């Protein structure tokens, strides 16, 4: 099997893994995590007071999702650039050995 075929199958599998919970649990909230972790702590330790606040908090959910998208975009851009570089080899012989 060619590399791209193998990889296509693997990526489809990842998509399935991400989608199955949505289908299995139609009523779940799929809430963001830190908040829930904080709840668990307050539940176990009702007297605990967070002693430090984030310096910068995204102004809204929209801004936050933009920043997360930006993070993924920067990363994906670099990954794509490097993959493009290494897969384009002028010297055909090296490829033949692989």
């Amino acid at each position: 099997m060619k590399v791209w075929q193998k990889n296509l199958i693997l990526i489809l599998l990842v998509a399935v893994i991400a989608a199955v919970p949505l289908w299995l649990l139609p009523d779940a909230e799929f809430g963001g995590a830190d908040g829930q972790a904080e709840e668990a702590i307050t539940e176990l330790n009702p007297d605990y007071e967070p002693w430090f606040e984030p310096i910068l908090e995204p102004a809204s959910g929209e801004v936050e999702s933009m920043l997360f998208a930006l993070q993924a975009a920067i990363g994906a851009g670099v990954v794509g650039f490097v993959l493009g570089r290494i897969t384009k080899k002028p010297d055909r012989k090296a490829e033949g050995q692989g």
Partner: protein
Amino acid sequence: MRTVTANKTVRAAAVLAALLGLMTMSASAMHIAEGMLPVPWAIGWGAVCVPFVVAGFFSIKKKIDQAPRAKILLAMCGAFAFVLSALKIPSVSGSCSHPTGVGLGAILFGPLTMTVLGLIVLLFQALLLAHGGLTTLGANVFSMAIAGPILSWLVYKLLRKTKAPAAVAVFAAAALGDLFTYVVTSVQLGVINGGMVKFLTIFAVTQIPLAIAEGLLTVVIFNVLEKYSKTELHELQVL
């Protein structure tokens, strides 16, 4: 024949329902939020991380000297962690968490290198996204950029010793490293707050499918590297 199948279906449904019932007490697993660690612990975890970060810088220099052409792969490992830790994926526990993406770099460059790259990712998220935090940076670096990568690296080396195929070793290393990161997070919270089992159950369950996803995605990248960057992988003593 039909009743047998029906019975099986009922039983499967019952088991599934029971499992889902257990999972509804979910919180999801991510970095420890700002201010949620008592001061001594915040300082303590920070101190624990310092030598690893310092050693990480030396490790990067050594690896680049050893395989100068692998510099571009180092950039990619950092970027890969950047992408994966931005993807919040729904999990079977009914909440979302994200993979860490540090397994790839740990396999290619060793765990110490990933301490530095993981620190960068965590700083970005703590400063700009209010995700994780500065006071919990030490604890989060320890789980995601020290403990996880060390386990990934060990699993990879061990499996390769047993002559397991590289792709299998990569999958297991990345997936287990991801899972281990969140086990460490639960222990970090459990030690302070009690309820270790609760944290562990919740965090580990949420992370299982994501760990598998991370393992698969790491293999995707590794497949390409194995074909096109064999020389670099040999220089880095990965293959």
